[in-house]
């Protein structure tokens, strides 16, 4: 059906916001699973109202977020080599994502911790590679993008198998693909080689996440009630109001405007209270879910001792150009590549979880 041109001017691109509430200590709570399933994260921020100095244990957790690596001009076939699979993919959680590639324009590759290698490629590359894939969900009637998923830990993918040899041949000879990759590896035993030594022949660089601290003074904070997701007039604010407010705080938007103001009419949702100090920490890099779960756990423990704060927040931004959002759900970039989530942890360890995605995305889990 064609849409009259004028109506098109009023349409908005599709987007989804999922809001959940639950209890962090509930046996069947899936909140940690949602963190684990969101593999590629570029920024983590947490905001603690009524907090001037960060407790030592949280400082240590942040310091432990860990290194990641940037490897230049790495051929994708090196990620399907058996030496690599045995040393890293099978011995922990290995994360890889192409750096400086745009999912709506370029070829992109990502290695998930479950051993799946995902290639999101344009039609030309797909035809030249000759590997089996499926059309991208967001490519329209004329398919211009394909998704190839290779399970590196599949039992049929052993070194001598036909499958393995074909993949290796396709990526090595048929259509060699080369990218700059962000890499991170998480394993519980400290044994084995490191990415740094494994890729020593390549141009590899170890990077540390950038961490910034900020103390916000006299901050207007919305009043929230954990069991009222939609808020109650005059009693507490809704989850959408909180979501916008947090965006305003992280973007340093002024919160006290009037409805008659010429410049901006945005104001902190009602009801609200003013907190004297709030602590804001931002970590930027290639941050793996395991570390975010540790941080989330420590933030829950923050309420182990009596605190003035009634709640705190933890925000996680995904990579706009990652080929997946949660699990293996395809992710794309139309006008923006938003895939982010935010936790509100309440004093009684109830939580709110907000998951947001843009136009070319499945519904979050």
């Amino acid at each position, binding site marked *: 059906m064609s849409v009259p*041109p004028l109506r098109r001017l009023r349409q908005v691109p599709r987007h989804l916001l999922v809001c959940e509430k639950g209890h962090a200590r509930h046996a069947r709570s899936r909140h940690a699973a949602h963190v684990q399933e969101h593999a590629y994260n570029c920024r983590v921020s947490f905001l603690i109202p009524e907090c001037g100095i960060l407790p030592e244990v949280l400082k240590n957790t942040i310091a432990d977020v860990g290194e990641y690596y940037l490897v230049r001009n790495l051929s994708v076939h090196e990620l399907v080599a058996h030496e690599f699979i045995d040393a890293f993919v099978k011995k922990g959680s290995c994360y890889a994502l192409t750096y400086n590639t745009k999912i709506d*324009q370029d070829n992109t590759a990502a290695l998930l911790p479950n051993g799946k290698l995902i290639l999101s490629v*344009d039609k030309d590359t797909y035809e030249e590679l000759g590997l089996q894939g499926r059309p991208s969900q967001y490519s*329209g009637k004329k398919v211009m*993008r394909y998704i190839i998923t290779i399970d590196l830990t599949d039992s049929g993918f052993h070194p001598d198998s036909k499958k393995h040899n074909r993949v290796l041949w396709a990526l090595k000879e048929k259509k060699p693909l080369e990218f700059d990759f962000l890499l991170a590896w998480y394993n519980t035993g400290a044994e084995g080689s490191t990415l740094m030594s494994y890729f020593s022949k390549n141009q590899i660089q170890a990077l540390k996440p950038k961490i910034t601290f900020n103390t916000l003074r006299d901050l207007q904070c919305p009043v929230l009630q954990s069991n009222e997701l939609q808020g109650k007039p005059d009693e507490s604010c809704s989850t959408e109001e909180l979501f916008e407010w947090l965006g305003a705080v992280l973007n340093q938007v002024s919160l006290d405007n009037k409805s008659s103001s010429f410049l901006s009419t945005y104001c902190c949702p009602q009801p609200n209270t003013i907190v004297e100090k709030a602590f804001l920490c931002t970590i930027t890099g290639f941050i793996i879910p395991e570390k975010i779960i540790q941080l989330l756990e420590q933030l829950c423990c923050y309420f182990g001792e009596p605190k003035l704060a009634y709640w705190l927040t933890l925000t996680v931004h995904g990579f706009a150009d990652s080929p997946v959002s949660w699990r293996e759900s395809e992710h794309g970039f139309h006008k923006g590549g938003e895939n982010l989530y935010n936790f509100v942890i309440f004093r009684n360890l109830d939580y709110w979880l907000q998951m947001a995605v843009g136009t070319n995305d499945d519904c979050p889990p």
Partner: protein
Amino acid sequence: MAGFADLNLPQGLDKKSLQSLLEAAAHLGYSAVALNHVVDFKEKKQEIVKPVSPSELFPSLPIVQGTSKRIKVLTRLTLIVSDPSHCNLLRSTSANIRLYDIIAVFPKTEKLFHIACTTLDVDLVCINVTEKLPFYFRRPPVNMAIDRGIYFELLYTHAIKDSTMRRYTISNAISLMQICKGKNIVISSAAERPLELRGPYDVANLGLLFGLSESEAKAAVSTNCRATMLHGETRKSACGVVYTVKKPRKVEEEEATLPACKKAKTQA
């Protein structure tokens, strides 16, 4: 999907202005541009010169923002035709014409629009955006052009410079959309200065103003431009594009991808 392209940067500028335009285009995220050489047959005897080689003009091209690739620069020839005799040149196998990556034609009359859509061997048909449409778009030639893999070009710079032309741009675009249903549209700038260029996502949003859907609008600055370039390549080689990939091996092992699959690509 493909990278973003602006298929119309005027070639007539001095080198310094052109350099700053290329830099602005790369900075805005365009991965390819075409330098447009315009020939207007109304102005006395016009000769078609050889295209300037971009690599000679600019030994080092700017890097596309957020990538490690350099911007790709193509050559384009636009013929402004107001009389059927002007088209003879396109039918002849003029050597210089074949050297251009993209050939566009700007028909001034309905008859010439019909000829351009149905018989001329071109890649782009320019749509008038600076005055009231001199003729009606009709379905048969437009559909024929779409079937032949020819694209229609709309320009946006005039709409930035002048409010009257802005009206013509939008209304002519909407008239065209009524007939072509949003298919085979390319939006380019014809910008002479960096401040007249707009980013690819901004231009895609303008497409909505012209009556395109979200995906058609984005295609007008990406996949449709790529298809135009491939159409140009096919035209140049007359029978389809064959890429040969040289390998550091013996001659008999050299590989060539099939022309059949390339043909499919140019249609996409």
